[in-house]
């Protein structure tokens, strides 16, 4: 594999990892606060639709992004009402949200655009374009660093940089601020937070809301940055992969980065059977190639990752009086 191929692979890795990373961090906030969320997929999908739809209607992608985040927040609020206020089953609520998003996006898309559940293609300002970082063009021809900087680091959309910046930010928020301390505590032992006189409900809603915002950005990234419009079911299971990455990452921000990058790399490799063939020296069956990322995940999980201990209060509603 030559250097440029490697750069291309990593470039693809970054793009594929970005929505996973955002969704994974979203899940991290929610689950660290004790609210399990298998509705990442649905929130992402709803955000993908609403951001593309509103961007297409207004011609402004930033308004689209806001709409996407808003839609995701609305579903997050629903999850909050079900699992925090009414102490419902968090898994059921998540499943329902996934179905709701899958159905509603197409229903509304059909109602608004009559294009079979798609939005019109986004053009110009209705889309996030890649950003060329300063000096990228200038050093593009410098060996080694040139391609690295110009191809791999530069040229992504603003949302990618936001996603990567979200990692240290999440870490800082969780481990260096009062809010983070309380948020982690409420996922481990909500009674400790309650007896300290802090609202368990308030904290959990805050966490769920952050989750909504991040899922919203992830969805908007899919439809307005990676793509130029919404196609039904376009989240294509990424919410579940993000969830897997979250467990893989043992609910930690930096690990989440590595886990999603790994999944991104698997996805990128899948698009380059020639590289895999060159590496292992034989032709890989198409179907095996498709299954490879999943097989690799299982192997890594079984071989190298120890037991992942979820937040202790995760999944259980906080009930103090019956």
């Amino acid at each position, binding site marked *: 594999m030559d250097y440029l191929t490697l750069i291309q692979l990593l470039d693809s890795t970054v793009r594929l990892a970005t929505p996973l990373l955002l969704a994974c961090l979203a899940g991290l906030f929610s689950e660290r606060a004790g609210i399990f969320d298998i509705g990442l997929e649905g929130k992402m999908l709803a955000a993908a639709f609403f951001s593309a739809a509103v961007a297409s209607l207004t011609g402004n992608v930033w308004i689209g992004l806001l709409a996407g985040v808003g839609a995701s927040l609305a579903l997050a609020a629903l999850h909050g009402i079900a699992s925090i206020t009414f102490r419902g089953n968090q898994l059921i609520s998540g499943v329902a949200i996934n179905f709701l998003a899958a159905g509603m996006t197409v229903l509304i898309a059909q109602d608004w655009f009559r294009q079979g559940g798609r939005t019109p293609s986004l053009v110009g300002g209705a889309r996030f374009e890649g950003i060329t970082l300063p000096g990228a063009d200038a050093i593009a021809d410098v060996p080694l660093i040139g391609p690295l900087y110009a191809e791999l680091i530069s040229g992504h959309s603003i949302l990618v940089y936001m996603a990567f910046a979200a990692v240290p930010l999440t870490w800082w928020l969780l*481990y*260096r*601020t*009062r*809010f*983070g*301390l*309380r948020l*982690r*505590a409420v996922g*481990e*032992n909500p*009674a*400790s*937070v*309650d*007896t*300290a*006189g*802090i*609202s368990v409900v308030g904290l959990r809603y805050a966490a769920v809301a952050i989750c909504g915002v991040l899922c919203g950005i992830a969805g908007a990234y899919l439809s307005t940055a990676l793509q130029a419009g919404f196609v039904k079911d376009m989240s294509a299971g990424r919410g579940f992969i993000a969830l897997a990455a979250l467990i893989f990452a043992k609910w930690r921000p930096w690990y989440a980065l590595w886990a999603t990058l790994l999944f991104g790399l698997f996805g990128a490799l899948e698009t380059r059977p020639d590289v895999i063939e060159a590496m292992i020296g034989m032709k890989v069956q198409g179907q095996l190639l498709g299954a490879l990322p999943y097989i690799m995940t299982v192997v890594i999980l079984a071989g190298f990752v120890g037991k992942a201990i979820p937040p*202790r209060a995760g999944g259980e509603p906080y009930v*103090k*009086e*019956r």
Partner: protein
Amino acid sequence: MSDQTTTERQATAASTAPAIELKGISKAFGPVQANKDISIRVMPGTIHGIIGENGAGKSTLMSILYGFYKADKGEVWINGSKTAITDSQAAIAAGIGMVFQHFKLVENFTVLENIILGAEDGRLLKPSLAKARRSLVELANDYGLNVDPDALIQDIGVGMQQRVEILKALYRQADILILDEPTGVLTPAEADQLFRILDRLKSEGKTIILITHKLREIMETTDTVSVMRRGEMTATVKTSETSPAELAELMVGRKVLLRVDKVPATPGDVVLDVKGLRVIDDKGVERLRGIDLQVRAGEVLGIAGVAGNGQSELLEVLGGYADGTGEVTLNGVALDLTGRLSDGQSRRARGIAHVPEDRQREGLIMEYQAWENTAFGYHHDADYRTGLLMNNAAIREDTAEKMERFDVRPPNPKLAAKNFSGGNQQKIVLAREIERNPDLLLIGQPTRGVDIGAIEFIHQQIVALRDQGKAILLVSVELEEILALSDRIAVMFDGQVMGERLPDQTDEKELGLLMAGITDTGAAPVAKGT
């Protein structure tokens, strides 16, 4: 009432106002009336005890005072002014601190993090942590409350955890400290230290409310004491004007025998013979470092020791759910310590019954009904099964009988275990383990958190079993209990047996030294076999 009158009142009544006055507190949990119209006054600078049977409503009342539960009716007055305790934040602001029966600590946080949680200064943690670290040093100096600020809660013992809870309250500058069954998990030494701290706090003018099942603690430390029964406050008396017997009677509603009556043991053959038993835990730490002991038929061998010195592992390995090495025989036949036959079911088949230390985590399935718990571990026994099925009818019948005999209240086999109070939960476990007619009974902490009426009953059962000729291995951190029940006492320290004593030839002081690893000769303990 206007602000002005409040302050006026405060000013005039300052010298005489009670630190806490509860007026007509009522609280129902669904259909259960946990507190009925309760009123109580506690004067500043005193230690006020509250006693009562399991489920009497003590914790509920205190949780209301601390703002954890909301009362249905009633008023709270602090230092002479009516205070709305809307939540714990309000209680903390009013100078109240509470150490709950079940600690409210975050297991994977450090001590320091737990202490500042909810009482941080500003949005960033760094300054808060630094400040807490400084005041922790002060508090440690002032009260002798030493803890490692950077240790994780899950890595420190319950005694330490309790210190953290107390430090939490003091860090928040509590003037009123509520302690709910603080000594249930402490060793005698730790308890003594706790009471010294309480005295110290009292001398500083702080007010303390102490809930406990131990009458001795009430008599030794409190100034006044209230008795609760079935959600009501039945009496409040000056401690100096009452006696343990009277308190016990007030609490249970009948006369209670405060001493264990027993005849001398007549030990028979060796039932359990342990030689060189070693256990290494998941983290690779050697928890048992070569244990030798014997238990004979018809005797109680009491294992004394500070919690965490290997007693739990001893019970676990004998009970069949930890692996060990060494030589253990039961009635002369070797026990499998690691292989296929080293599980709990094989142990039961061999005639070893086990009342575990933690009834809620191990002894019971809290969601299971009483009858299902009665079969727990014995569900493969012939009389509890029909083929592959469970013989539910037989188990239920058997359970009803056992509940009757052990006075489990309510005697309803279909009630889930979690709906029984601690004492009654313990009776369910005991009934199950004793009634299967074992050769050897392993018992850990038989009366932890159990009220006095139930303690009396449980002790009687243990003695009766001994008199039937069973071998009993008793583990307890309550020296009093060990002394009262044992025919021989072995003291464990750091995974080893420090020595054996006879109960009538020793006392708490000598045992206490052994528990600290100090032998007769005064020399530090030498590790055996290393």
